[in-house]
């Protein structure tokens, strides 16, 4: 079953076309990576799918609900972890989790239970009472994803979740994301080839707002005639330039 169905989605800012007639589907429980160089349109796509930006043309359906006409319903089933770590710095980690639970209208009891669940799932016990603004980048990013998951979303958007993290923090976060696979449909944007190859069920490569290819990492390597994913990415993007 297709959880996300994107139909000719476009976004134009004056003379610039950020996303150009994108059509794509994501199956339930799948992890799809949007891969591309800067300006490929990955973040704009996420912003449209999460109802932050209205498309100029086209539509997308999340569990059959339109992002254009049923945004309120769509918002109840999604969660976003933005590119920059979006946390309230003056609140503790626990209070940040409670803030998001409250934003989804959870009762106090449910918010408390979900906070404890996220604390255990993301191993946040040691930082729960610390101010979020004082945490390291790795902890902030982990907290940010926990905040996205506390609302029990059916679809999770992760915009460059490991950007700026050191190797160990990135590895930890990959383990966390792997543990979510199958339970939640995830759309992830990244610059990192190894991240896309290692985590994704399918990868969609974008350039200048257009979709170049979508498939499993193996399918993309086969299409490019190489056994290295990074080489496959470069060939796909460069061939399109020609």
């Amino acid at each position, binding site marked *: 079953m297709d959880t996300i169905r994107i139909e000719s989605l476009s976004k134009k800012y004056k003379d610039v076309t950020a996303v150009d007639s994108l059509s794509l589907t994501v199956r339930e429980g799948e992890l799809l990576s949007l891969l591309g160089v800067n300006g490929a349109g990955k973040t704009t796509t996420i912003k449209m799918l999460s*109802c932050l930006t209205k498309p100029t043309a086209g539509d997308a359906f999340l569990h059959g609900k339109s992002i254009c006409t049923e945004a309120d319903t769509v918002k109840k089933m999604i969660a976003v972890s933005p590119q920059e770590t*979006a946390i309230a*710095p*003056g609140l503790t980690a626990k209070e940040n989790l409670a803030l*998001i639970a409250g*934003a*989804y209208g959870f009762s106090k009891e449910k918010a408390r239970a979900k906070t404890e669940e996220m604390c255990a799932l993301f191993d946040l016990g040691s930082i729960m009472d610390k101010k979020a603004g004082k945490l390291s980048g790795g902890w902030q990013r982990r907290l940010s994803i926990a905040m996205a998951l506390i609302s029990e979303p059916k679809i999770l958007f992760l915009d460059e979740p490991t950007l700026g993290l050191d190797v160990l923090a990135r590895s930890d976060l990959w383990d966390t994301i792997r543990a979510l696979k199958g339970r939640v449909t995830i759309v992830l944007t990244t610059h990192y080839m190894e991240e896309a190859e290692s985590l994704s069920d399918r990868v969609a490569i974008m350039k200048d707002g257009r979709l170049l290819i979508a498939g499993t990492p193996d399918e993309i390597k086969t299409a490019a005639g190489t056994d290295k994913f990074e080489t496959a990415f470069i060939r796909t993007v460069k061939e399109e330039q020609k």
Partner: protein
Amino acid sequence: MKMLTFANRCTKEILRDPLNLAFGLGFPIVLLLLLTAIQANVPVPLFEIAHLTPGVCVFGLSFITLFSATIIAKDRKSTLLQRLYTTPMRASDFILGYTLPLLPIAAAQCAITYAVALFLGLHLSVNILVAIVLILPISFLFIALGLLCGSIFTDKQVGGICGALLTNLTAWLSGTWFDLTLVGGIFEKVAYALPFVHAVEAERAVLNGDFGGIFPHLWWVLGYGVVLMTAAILLFLRQMKR
């Protein structure tokens, strides 16, 4: 529930910033002490405690503008607002969540200023309680101004515009530090066309037990408050949709 959760978060963020407490409470009290000391040495009717305290209370509200503008500008910068825009929270949850916490903070600031004034010789009367209640509609104007500035400017610009320019404008154009009739001319006309002096005169009237004297000053204050709040809401909604 969603609005209360957000309001609770805003309250914590504001009150946990030591600079907010230092400026919001400390500065008006220091001014009150300083000007009372000057009054003790060189008696000036303008600085008599019953005349001075209402002006200091209104001046203190310019820091409420700074608090509200700063928290919104910082939220916009940190992308926390973007994350919250993807939740089922509505525009009214955000606007009330930013506004409501500042009303009790304004009342507390005013009550503390009057408490200090009592130590400095202000006559204890029930009018003080009415003056503290009157600060609520007056603070609505200053909160609206903060919402508007926070929606327009960056957090750095807010520091300069609300922290320096607005506090000085409030001070000069309110008739607290000098008698506006002594300057006269265009300066006096401009001052009376703006709401700050009307806010001070309404507070002074109440403290003197002249309840009829609140008007028309309160209408000026509320009129500006409604216009500024409408502009702030429209701008906030526009940014939310964008």
